[in-house]
Every structure is written in C-alpha cells, then in structure tokens.
C-alpha cells in the first residue's frame, strides 16, 4: 500500500516521472527546477529509472530532444522554469502542433529583468498560447498526481498533446510536504504503455513536419484548436478514473467554501493554500466570501467557470503576471472575456500581486478581498490595481 511520507516536492515530482516509466528525460538546469532534474539524473544513475537522461546544452535543445524522443515513440519528461521556458518558446509550438505527447513541469519563476529566481506566473503566461494542455497545481500531492495523469491525458489517442504542469518555484518545489507516492503496480494499471500511432520507423516511413502552404495551414491550426478543446473531456475522464483508483479528486476549477458566497476570490497555484486560510478567517468574521482555484488553464474551462460564478456579486481575480500596457492580469482579462456574454455576471475586479517572490500573507488576501469589494462599490481609477507595491 502506498504510504504518506515527508518528501521534498521536487523529489516527489521526479519520483512521479519514474513511476510513470519515462523512457527519456532531457533537461537543462535552472533554479528552482534543479532539484527535479538532479533527482531524475540520480534515479537513472542508480538504475531505478530505466531511461536515457540527455544532459543537453540548453533548454532549446532540451525541448528539441524531447520532440525527437517522442517522435520515435518514447515516453518523455522534462522540466524547466522562467528563462528556460522562454528559450524553449518556438519549440513549444512545434511540440503541440506536431502532436507530440510529453510532460513538462514548470517551476514557475519570474522573468528577467531584473533577474529574479523567485516565483510568479510571468513565465507561464508567456507560453499561454503555445497549444499545450496546462495545469496549475496547488501542492506536492497534486504535482505528483498530475504528472502521472499528464502522461495519460497527453498520450490518449484522442488527444496526443504535450502537457505542462505548473508548480510554483520554491513555494512548492523546495518544501517538504506529506505526500503519498502511488504504488508502481497501481500506476502501471492506470497508465498503459505509450503507443505513438505513427512513430518514425524505417519499417513504415512517414514524413513529419512538412512545409504547410496557405492551402493547408488554416486547416492544421483549426484541427489543433478543436483537438485541444476536446482534450478537456479526456482530462475530466482521466481525473475521474484517477479518483476511482487513488481516491483523490481533481476538477478544472475547485471551489472552497463558496456556498452562498457573494464575493469570490480566484487564485492559481500554491497561493490557494494561504487564500483558503484567509477565507476561513473571513467566514469566521461573518463575511460571505469563497475561493475558486483555477487548475485547468488550457483548455480553458468556460462552462465550469460560468457555473461557479453565477450567484456571486463580485469576482476578484489575482494575477501573478502583468500583460504590460494592456489589460494587466492575463487571467483576469480572460475571465472577463469568458463572462462577458452572460446575462447575469459578477463585477470582475483584477489585482496583480505576488510578483518575483513577493509573499502575500493571510492578512494580505483579506486586504485584497476588502479592497475588491470596495472597488466593486465605488470603482477604481485603474483597469487593475497592484497589491502591496511601494510607490
């Protein structure tokens, strides 16, 4: 039986890739992702993970090598963060458009400049449109479970797409949490061997990555869009099955104490943990406040969002990245767009905070909620406000 033990989340993520029987790991070190790939290198060196570990010379090559490995039918894993993710940028589009399943954990970190090794979501938001399935996790257990689910979702014949698991740098990667690592035999039962339908194989030659003229490019992109939208139902299916086998539930948007809540706060990733405590406090004070945790970022869960906000008056969205000179928080702007056509929708108030590792305490979340309620009543001079900045 699987047992719960105290594990550093990065180590547990590496273990999850091992339990998933990855064939190839190709990665380049960057803080705060390092412990994940170091652990994997160790597992391969000790023979615990039977895989090829490719210590590439850059993230551009890391992702390119993942593509090569996936194209011959290998189950492939990588991890990166911030500058590394940006260096991969053009390759990310290729991985999804050419339909190569793989799992990548992103230890979310702020983008330079100024160089900062600390956490926020500016790296994740910069790769929003790359066509990957993207899941934000809240704690170590979610990270482990979703690495395993990620392979199953991405490798499903109806999907065949790469999957990004976002976990906050340091706040998650470097903490020790009680984590239950599933038993290998259960993972084997849950996750069938990877069978890429048409791998590169001299026995059955295929041409991959042909030149797409205007005659075909639009159709390829449309196909990609439809396919990614469909990936949502497969994700739900996989999560359900995971729950059946392992007893842990995942959903695109998780609700916390939202019954009768007039005000909702929406967060992503590890911030949700502190936000829950803040909600408990405010509920204790008699405030009708609830929390939404957005887990499935791509494909975006439109129906689920519309359903969970329909009875609220105010929806406060906390972004950890800025879309400069534009709408401010990218998540907030998407949520506004998603709800625009709804007959009854809450006022949507956007905040940006927690940039470059700046902590938001429980009191901070309370402040954000109170200010959000105030803006909903009186308005703000700005499109969005930034929390805790020194002017």
């Amino acid at each position, binding site marked *: 039986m699987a047992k719960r033990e105290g594990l550093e989340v990065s180590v547990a993520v590496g273990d999850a890739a091992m339990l998933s029987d990855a064939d190839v790991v190709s990665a380049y070190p960057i803080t705060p992702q390092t412990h994940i790939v170091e652990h994997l290198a160790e597992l391969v060196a000790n023979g615990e993970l039977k895989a090829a570990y490719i210590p590439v010379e850059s993230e551009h090559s890391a992702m*390119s090598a993942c*593509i090569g490995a996936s194209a011959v039918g290998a189950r492939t894993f990588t991890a990166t963060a911030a500058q590394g993710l940006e260096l991969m940028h053009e390759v990310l589009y290729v991985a999804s458009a050419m339909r190569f399943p793989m799992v990548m954990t992103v230890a979310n970190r702020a983008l330079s400049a100024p160089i900062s090794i600390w956490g926020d979501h500016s790296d994740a938001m910069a790769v929003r449109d790359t066509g990957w399935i993207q899941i934000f996790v809240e704690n170590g257990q979610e990270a482990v479970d979703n690495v395993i689910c990620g392979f199953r979702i991405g490798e499903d014949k109806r999907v065949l797409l790469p999957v990004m698991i976002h976990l906050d740098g340091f706040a998650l990667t470097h903490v020790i949490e009680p984590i239950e690592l599933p038993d290998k035999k259960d993972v084997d039962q849950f996750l069938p061997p990877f069978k890429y339908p048409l791998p590169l194989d001299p026995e059955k030659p295929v041409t991959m990555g042909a030149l797409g003229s205007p005659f075909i490019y639009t159709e390829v992109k449309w196909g990609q869009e439809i396919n990614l939208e469909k990936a949502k139902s497969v994700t739900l299916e996989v999560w359900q099955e995971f729950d059946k086998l392992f007893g842990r539930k995942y959903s695109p948007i998780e609700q916390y104490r939202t019954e009768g809540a007039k005000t909702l706060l929406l967060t992503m990733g590890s911030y949700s943990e502190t936000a829950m405590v803040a909600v408990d406090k405010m509920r204790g004070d008699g405030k009708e406040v609830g929390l939404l945790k957005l887990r499935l970022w791509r494909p975006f869960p439109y129906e689920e969002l519309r359903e969970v906000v329909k009875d609220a008056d105010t929806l406060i969205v906390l972004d950890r990245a800025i879309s400069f000179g534009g709408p401010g928080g990218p998540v907030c702007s998407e949520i506004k767009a998603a709800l625009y056509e709804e007959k009854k929708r809450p006022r949507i108030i956007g905040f940006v905070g927690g940039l470059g590792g700046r902590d938001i305490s429980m009191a901070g979340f309370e402040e954000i909620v109170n200010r959000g309620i105030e803006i909903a009543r009186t308005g703000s001079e700005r499109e969005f406000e930034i929390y805790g900045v020194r002017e």
Partner: protein
Amino acid sequence: MMATAVHGPGVITELEPFAPGHRACSGCGEALAVRLAAKAIGNNAIIVNATGCMEVVASPFPYTSWRIPWIHTLFENAAAVASGAEAGLKALEKKGKRPERNIKVVALAGDGGTSDIGLQALSGALERGHDFVYICLDNEAYMNTGIQRSSATPYGASTTTSPAGKESLGQVTWKKNLPAIAVAHDIPYVATACPSYHRDLMRKVTKAVETPGPAYIHILSVCPTGWRCATDDAIKVGRLAVRTGIFPLYEVTNGQYKMSLSLTKLEPVENYLKTQGRFRHLTEDTIKEIQERVTREYNKLVELAGKPGGETSSE
C-alpha cells in the same frame, strides 16, 4: 520491358531514399549531395532535417521526396532533435519496447543551420557522443531566404547581406572552418566531401553511418542560383573548388588526418573564382590574397595528414 539489375564493383546502388521530383532549382548541387548521401545512408535510417532549401524543396505538403522516415521541426535544432531520436530509440530498444534494428539517425542541415544558428546544438550533440551522423550541406550562404551571407560564405563573395560595393569587396571574413571545429570535439569520424566526387562522397557517408558514435560530414554543395554560375556547371565548379585547394577533400578518423586525393599541383584559384558571378568584382590583388591564403591553408592540412594524399582521385 524486363527489369534488369546490374551488379559489380563500381556500380552505384539504384536505391533512392530521396526520390526524384523535388522542387530544387535546376542544377542544384545540394539536392545532388542529398541524393548521393541518401543512397549511401540506405533505408534503415531516420532523417532529421533543419529548415533550409532541402527541407523546403522536399516536403511541400502533401508531397514528400523522402521514402525513409523524415522529420523537420526548426532551423537551429537538427542536432538536438537527432539527439532525442537517437537516445529514444536506444532507450526503447534497451527496455524491449522496440526491436533492436540498429537504425541510424542522420541530421541534415545547411551551412547556416550548422555553422551559425545551430552551432551550439551541434556542439552539444557531438560532445555528448550520440551515435548519429551530422551532414552539413554547405552552399556557402542562407539560400532559402535569398542568398544572405553566413559564416561559411567565402572571403570576397558578394551576397545580399555582404554585397560588393564601392566600399566593400563583399564578404570580408574568411570561411569558418567547421570540420576543424568538429574535429576539436574528438569525435571518431569527420570528413569533407563534394558531389563532384560522388564515389568519395558515398564512401564517406557509408563510413560515417558504420562508425559508432558521432560522425560529421561537411559537403560543399554548389548552388547555381546563389553563386551565379551556369546551371549545368555544378559538377565542374565543385571539382574546381577541390582542385584549386579551396575546398580540400579529406577525412579525419580518430584524430588521424588523411587527404582523399593526391593532387600533385593545385590549380590557380582564379580558375574557380571566375566561374561564378559572386566573385566577378574581385580585383587582382584580392585574388592574390585569396591564393596566398588557400595555399597556406592547404599546406597546413597536407602537413597534418603527413603526406599529400591517399588513393588517386575517384571522381
């Protein structure tokens, strides 16, 4: 008609993994290089192609010139994609998930994709020791985007980004020595080749495929469009590049240099330069400067090889 097959020494295989009917310009030396290399590579291989002329001319959807598995993703990452494919195959075979078939992974890239934007990925792949072959198709400029200079463009050549003008003789830098950079990685096999010497080219590719570990082959590929020479001159111009010592043919096996031809006397470089419009503007002084450099570099190479050449020309 009855199909007949001829066998014997010196008869070239009729295998054509790179099919005819591609869209290269007429007289393209690079397409010829690919065709010859593909014959030597055979069917048990996976090709990883960088963006560039050979990718574009061979794969306009829904057509393909490739009868063997082929993948193209980006411009600068052929060596990295090849690394992943090679490592993936080996891992799957070791785990019993794929039968052991000794499939060779071969990367193809232009001089731009190799000596400029793809150099880091190439260096990484060579250094890590992947069991693969990397073939640089050197037509001495970024041809696919319209004849812009690369670091492999020779001194004095006029290109669209190193145009000859009142204040410039064209390319002002000397051609980057990629084979030497490959040799510096201490890999088991490095060779230069040119389709004008087709048997030599195919022998070297075969040797590269048979060599365990990384092998690098640098093929000078005449581009009539970019070099502004006659479309029926690619063979002649390639031969002159070799005979003038501008592009010497040699191989380096486990660090041991060997010249591929025994040229007792080099032809003057002018014979080569005058075949191409890209050098038309060169003055006598510049030609002299080029001659001196070519002679010096060629002699250095001969010295490295210890003697002027191996078996006589096998054009």
